[in-house]
């Protein structure tokens, strides 16, 4: 019982620490995208290109080999041919899209796992910087509903609260189609988030229960007023 309590408490502490870390961005970086580890070689997010002369960024002179500063393009304007990535036309899979979700290497990353969408529609997002339509892939379910919320720019505060299902779904995924349009896929259920939430909430509940139990175990002592006149503490 004692060992179980220690284990519970240690797990809770670890979970609380872990929740404070930017796990989502780490996970996206380590995956090199959102799905599957097999395409990790396609990461455009790798070591920055260095000038042949070596050395750091500071000091010396600017050499003609220095890498051009890359500006982030909005999904609607990005096209495979125009992106001078390190690996040819590979999309920037590690970057976030405008909805806070991940940008896929290709649509097949999503469809290979979740199948073909039930319905595909083109829509112009009102707040998007470009008037180019998005290709919205609908799969139904909760993730689909949340995706439409994100697309419309409606992200209520309670989406980031653990009592709301949206907390356990990732943000929509996007990928750039060959024709230059951006495909949007619904967010997926995040089991890791659910697990961490259960551990954290369970840990807090456990601490509260132990605290209450200890309080109940304390001897019923006369009211403090009675002790005001006593020399005993």
């Amino acid at each position, binding site marked *: 019982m*004692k060992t179980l309590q220690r284990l519970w408490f240690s797990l809770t502490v670890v979970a609380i620490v872990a929740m404070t870390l930017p796990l989502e961005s780490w996970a996206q970086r380590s995956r090199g995208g959102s799905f599957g580890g097999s395409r990790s070689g396609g990461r455009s997010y790798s070591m920055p290109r260095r000038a042949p002369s070596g050395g750091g960024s500071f000091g010396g002179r600017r050499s003609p080999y220095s890498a051009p500063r890359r500006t982030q393009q909005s999904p609607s304007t990005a096209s495979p041919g125009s992106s001078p990535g390190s690996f040819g036309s590979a999309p920037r899979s590690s970057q976030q899209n405008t909805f806070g979700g991940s940008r896929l290497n290709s649509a097949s990353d999503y469809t290979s796992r979740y199948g073909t969408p039930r319905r595909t529609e083109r829509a112009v997002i009102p707040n998007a910087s470009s008037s180019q339509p998005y290709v919205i892939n609908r799969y139904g379910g909760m993730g689909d509903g949340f995706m439409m919320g994100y697309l419309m720019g409606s992200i209520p505060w309670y989406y980031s609260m653990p009592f709301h299902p949206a907390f356990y779904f990732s943000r929509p995924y996007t990928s750039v189609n060959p024709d230059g349009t951006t495909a949007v896929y619904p967010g997926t259920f995040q089991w890791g988030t659910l697990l961490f939430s259960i551990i954290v909430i369970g840990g807090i509940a456990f*601490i509260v229960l*132990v605290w209450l139990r*200890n309080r109940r175990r*304390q001897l019923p002592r006369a009211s403090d007023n*009675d002790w005001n*006149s*006593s*020399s005993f*503490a």
Partner: protein
Amino acid sequence: MATFGIESNGRIEKTAIYYNGEQLAGVREVFINLDENGTFDAIVQYQDRNGQLQTKQIFLDYFDNVQTREPSFTDEEAASLRLLVVDSDGSIESTHVAINDEEQFGIVSLFIHIKSPNHTSGGLRSLFGGQKDIPERPEFVVQITYRNDDDTLSTEGIF
């Protein structure tokens, strides 16, 4: 010579401890065991001003950092209480016991054990096991044994 007094109605919540005329505070335990054969144990445990527990021999040691307080009982309240005073220099021969200002004679033994219950914190540290505090019950035993004129012994509670 030190004077140690206990004023109470028999409940620990209504018990005042006096040392040389001052009322003490933060007392955790008082243990006095005296008998005519020479047994002389008189110990007090209190929490000092720094929160440390101190254990002292009542009639021999200096009370370091002891907490004192204003007298807690008014004259009217004190009228309903009993006052036990032990005046001693640490030896049984020179010990005088008085109850409500009346000196007592023919005492065979005096036994006092008053202890307040400990209060476990139950904080986060308690989650890590270790030694569990066993809740203690308050202790309040004050007994005096007299030898009567017919050489019989009678034991009475003082409070």
